[in-house]
C-alpha cells in the first residue's frame, strides 16, 4: 500500500448515485498515503517555464520528480512502521506560483534589532530582504535564488546541479527539488566573522496555500556566523487555525536548508518552528561539514498539525563536529516526526546530538536518529540522546536511536534514551520552596527545554521562544486541575 488513488469515492463519477441515501464515506487514508495532487510532470514543466529556468535546471527538477515517483514515503526500512500522514489532508493545496515573490518594499523593510541581515517571506511574497552595512561591506550575500540565477547563473548551477546535498533517497526532499518556486541564497565569504545573526523568516498558513522553497547556505573558510530561522504563522494562518480548527483547509510548507561549511568555519543555526495548527510542514536540513569546522543546531518545534523533519549531518572533513539540540513541545493532536542522520566520514570527528520532547494532550513525537560511522572515520566521538517527558495519559513517544558502525577505532560511540513523567522528587523540592504544584511543573518543563532556548543567538528570538513555550504551557497544561493523574481517563 504505497500509494492510494487519492480519488474520492464517488461511484462512477456520479456523486450520490450510490445504493442508499448514506453519504459516501471519505476515502480512508493509510498512514503512508500522501494526498498531494499537484506533483506531476506538467506541474514541474509549468514551474520551470514560469520561472524561466535554463535547461539544466528543468532537467534537475525532472530528476527530482523521478525520485519522488520512485521512492516510498520512508525509504529507510528502520522507520517504515513509524510513518503517519493521516492528519495531512493536502488534496486541496496548490503551490504558490513562481515569479510572484518580488515584493516591492522588501529592500526597505527595517532590520530587526541586533540582526546583521534579514529576509522574510509572507506566504508567497518576499516582504523583506535587507543587509546591514557591516554585512554588506564584509561581502555577505543574501538574495533570492531567482536573483542569483539572473546575476550568476554559473554559480547557481554549481550550487544546485553539482553540489546538491539533499538526500537522494528521500521522497519529500526530491519533491521539493522538483517543484521549488522560492528560495534564498546566503553566502558568507572566507574569514568573515559576524557578531550579529542573520535572520530568515517564513510566515505562512493561508488555507490551501503551499510554499516549496530551498535555502542554500555557503559558509567560507574560517568564517563564523549565526543564523536564526523563524517559521511562523502569518495573520491568515493564525486566523485559519483560530477559527474552527481547519475548516478553512490546511496549509503546506516544504522547505530545505542546504548548508556547506568551509574548512575552519563555524555556523550556529537556531530554528524556531511555530506555524499554526492548520499547517503541515516537511523540513529538510542537510549539511556537509568541512575540515575543522563546527555546526551547531538549536531547533525548537512547537507548531503545525504534522511536522516531518529530516536532518542530514555529513561530517566529511577531519576534525569536524556537529552539535545538535532539538526540542519539541507538543499539545492537542500534533505529530512531530523528526529524523536525524549523522554520518561520520573524516577522522576525529565529533557528533553530539540531543533531542528532548515534552508531550501533552494527544500529541506524539517520533524521535528517530541514526549515527553511521564509515570505515575511514577513525577516532570518532559520537553521542545521540533522545528523551521524552509525557505530560498526559494520551501522549505518545517513540524513540529509535540507532547506530551503524564500520570502524572500531572510536573515542566514544553511545546513545541513550529515557522516557518518564515529571520527576516527583524535583516537584517535591520545588513545592517545599513554596511554589504551587502547577508552577513547579512549569518550571521543571521549561528548565528541561532550556538547553535549546539558551542557544538561540538572537536575543529577541530567544525571548520569543521563551514566551511561546510559556504560552503553550499555559494553553495546554495550565488550565487543568493540578491533581494530575487522571486515571479515570484510561480504559
Amino acid at each position, binding site marked *: 500500500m504505497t500509494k492510494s488513488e487519492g480519488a474520492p469515492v464517488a461511484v462512477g463519477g456520479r456523486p450520490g448515485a450510490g445504493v442508499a441515501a448514506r453519504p459516501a464515506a471519505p476515502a480512508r487514508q493509510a498512514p503512508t498515503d500522501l494526498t498531494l495532487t499537484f506533483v506531476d510532470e506538467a506541474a514541474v514543466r509549468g514551474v520551470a517555464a514560469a520561472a524561466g529556468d535554463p535547461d539544466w535546471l528543468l532537467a534537475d527538477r525532472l530528476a527530482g520528480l523521478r525520485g519522488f515517483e520512485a521512492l516510498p514515503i520512508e525509504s529507510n526500512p528502520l522507520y517504515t512502521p513509524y510513518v503517519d500522514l493521516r492528519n495531512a489532508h493536502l488534496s486541496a493545496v496548490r503551490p504558490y506560483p513562481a515569479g510572484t515573490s518580488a515584493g516591492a518594499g522588501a529592500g526597505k523593510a527595517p532590520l530587526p534589532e541586533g540582526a546583521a541581515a534579514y529576509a522574510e517571506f509572507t506566504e508567497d511574497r518576499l516582504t523583506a530582504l535587507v543587509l546591514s552595512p557591516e554585512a554588506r561591506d564584509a561581502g555577505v550575500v543574501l538574495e533570492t535564488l531567482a536573483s542569483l540565477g539572473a546575476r550568476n547563473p554559473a554559480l547557481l548551477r554549481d550550487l544546485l546541479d553539482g553540489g546538491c546535498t539533499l538526500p537522494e533517497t528521500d521522497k519529500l526532499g526530491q519533491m521539493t527539488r522538483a517543484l521549488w518556486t522560492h528560495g534564498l541564497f546566503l553566502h558568507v565569504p572566507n574569514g568573515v566573522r559576524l557578531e550579529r545573526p542573520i535572520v530568515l523568516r517564513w510566515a505562512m498558513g493561508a488555507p490551501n496555500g503551499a510554499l516549496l522553497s530551498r535555502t542554500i547556505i555557503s559558509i567560507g573558510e574560517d568564517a563564523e556566523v549565526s543564523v536564526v530561522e523563524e517559521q511562523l504563522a502569518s495573520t491568515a494562518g493564525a486566523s485559519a487555525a483560530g477559527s474552527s480548527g481547519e475548516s478553512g483547509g490546511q496549509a503546506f510548507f516544504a522547505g530545505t536548508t542546504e548548508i556547506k561549511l568551509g574548512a575552519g568555519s563555524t555556523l550556529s543555526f537556531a530554528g524556531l518552528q511555530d506555524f499554526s495548527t492548520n499547517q503541515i510542514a516537511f523540513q529538510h536540513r542537510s549539511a556537509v561539514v568541512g575540515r575543522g569546522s563546527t555546526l551547531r543546531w538549536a531547533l525548537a518545534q512547537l507548531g503545525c498539525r504534522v511536522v516531518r523533519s529530516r536532518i542530514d549531518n555529513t561530517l566529511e572533513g577531519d576534525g569536524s563536529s556537529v552539535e545538535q539540540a532539538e526540542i519539541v513541545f507538543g499539545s492537542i493532536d500534533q505529530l512531530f516526526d523528526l529524523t536525524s542522520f549523522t554520518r561520520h566520514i573524516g577522522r576525529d570527528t565529533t557528533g553530539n546530538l540531543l533531542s528532548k520532547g515534552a508531550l501533552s494532550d494527544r500529541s506524539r513525537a517520533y524521535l528517530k536518529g541514526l549515527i553511521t560511522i564509515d570505515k575511514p572515520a577513525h577516532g570518532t566521538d559520537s553521542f545521540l540522546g533522545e528523551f521524552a517527558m509525557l505530560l498526559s495519559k494520551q501522549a505518545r513517544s517513540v*524513540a529509535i536511536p540507532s547506530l551503524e558502525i564500520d570502524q572500531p*577505532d572510536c573515542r566514544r560511540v553511545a546513545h541513550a534514551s529515557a522516557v518518564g513523567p515529571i520527576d516527583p522528587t524535583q516537584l517535591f523540592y520545588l513545592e517545599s520552596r513554596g511554589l504551587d504544584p502547577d508552577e513547579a511543573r512549569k518550571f521543571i518543563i521549561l528548565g528541561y527545554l532550556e538547553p535549546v532556548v539558551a542557544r538561540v543567538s538572537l536575543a529577541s528570538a530567544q525571548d520569543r521562544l521563551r514566551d511561546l513555550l510559556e504560552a503553550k504551557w499555559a494553553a495546554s497544561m495550565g488550565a487543568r486541575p493540578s491533581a494530575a493523574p487522571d486515571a479515570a481517563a484510561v480504559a
Partner: protein
Amino acid sequence: MATSPEIVSSEYKFGFHDEVEYLEETAAGLTRGTVEEISRFKNEPQWMLDFRLRAYEHYLSRPMPQWGGDLMQIDMSKIVYYRKPSQGEEKSWDDVPDKIKKTFERLGIPEAERKFLAGVGAQYDSEVVYHSVREELSKIGVVFMGTDQGLKEYPDLFRKYFATVVPPEDNKFAALNSAVWSGGSFVYVPKGVEVPLPLQAYFRINAENTGQFERTLIIVDEGAKVHYIEGCTAPIYTTDALHAAVVEVIALPHSKVRYTTIQNWSNDVYNLVTKRAHAHAHSTVEWIDANTGSKLTMKYPSIYLRGEGATAEVISVAVAGKGQHQDTGAKAIHLAPNTRSRIISKSISKDGGRTTYRGQLKVVPGATGVVSSVRCDALLLDEGSRSDTYPYIDIQEDDTTMTHEATVGKISQDQVFYLMSRGLTENEATNLVVQGFLEVFTKELPMEYAIEFNRLVKLEMEGSLG
C-alpha cells in the same frame, strides 16, 4: 589462567556428519502436498492439518522480509522439509540407533545427563529420538516430551495453548514453521511444582539441506518454576541449511520460567527463529540467549507482559565472526500495570562479522507504573567488522520510567596492557577482557554450560589477533 591445551584450532568442533538412512522423507521443496504428507506421516488430527494448511497459505502470500539479514541466498526449493530418522521416540538410551547415538555421544549428552540434567530431549533432524524425564519428575506430573507426542498424549492442553502466543500470521517464518513443524519440546509444569534441575534439549541438524522446524511449547502453571536449556549444533555443509523454529512459553500467574539457549549452528545455517512468552500476573520470564554460530541469525526473544506485576528479563550475547551476521535483540511489550523489564545485550564482531541489536520496548496506554531498562554494549575487534543498534522505544503511557543506553567500542588497550604486564600473552589478555565483557551472561549459566560457553568464545576468538 587455565588454558585448555586441546583447543588449538578454530575448526568447527561439531562439524562431522553421519550417514543415516532416513525412514521417511519428503521431496525437496514445499507444496501443499508436502504439508499434507507431513501431517499424514504423523497421523495427526484434522484440526492440525487444517492449521498447517492455513499457515501454508499465509506463508505463500507473505513477502520475504526486506529488513534484517540477507535472505536472498536461501533457495527454499532445495530444502527438504521433513525427515524422519528412526521410528518414534525411545525411552531408553540403549534403544537409540547406534549411528545417532554416536553423534550425541560426541556432543557429550549422556554424560551431561548423568551429571545434572533432569531430562534430555534430543532432536535428530525432525523427530525426537530420545527422551527421558527422571522418574521423580514424572511422578509430580512434570511433562517433558516431544511436541508430536504431546499432541497425542495431551490433546486438550496442547490445543488450548498451541499457537496462542505465536500465531501463524505473525511473520513469514512463523507461518512456514506452522505449516511444516515437526519435533521440539512440549513441557508442562503443574501448579506449584518447582523443577529443581534444568530440562535440556539438544537440537541437531544432520542431513544436508535439511530445514528444521521444531516447535516448542512450554506451559508453566501457577506458582511453578522451571529452567529449560537448549543447545544447537549442526555439521558443516557447503550448501545452506535452514532452521526456522517457533518457541511459545506461557507463564501463568506467579510462575517463573527461564529459557536458556546456546546457539552454535555451523556457519552455513540460516537461523530464523520466533521466540515469545506470555507473562501473566506476577510471573517472571527470562530469556538467556547466546548466539555464536550460524551464517545468519534473526531472533528477537520477546515477552508480552500481560498480567499486573509481571517481570521480564532478557540477557543476550552474540558473537559474529567471518561471514556471520547475528541480527538479534529482544522485545518487551508492557500490556499491564506495574510490569518490569530489563534487557541486556552484549555483542562482539570480528573478522568482518556483523552484529545487529534490534529491540523493541513498548508500553501501551493504561500500563501504569512500568519500569524498564535496556542496555546494549558492542565490541568491535577489528577493521571490517560492523555493529548496528536499532532500538525501538514506543511509550504511550505517561507513568513510565524507561532508560536505554548503548555503547560501541573496541577492546581497551589499557586493560590488555595491564594484563600483559602481569604475565599474560596478548591473546590470553584479550580473551580475558572478552570473557569479562560477557560475564553478565556467563554467570547466569549452570557451571558446565558456562565452561563450555567460555570455550566456544575462546574458539571463536582464536587467531583474532593478527
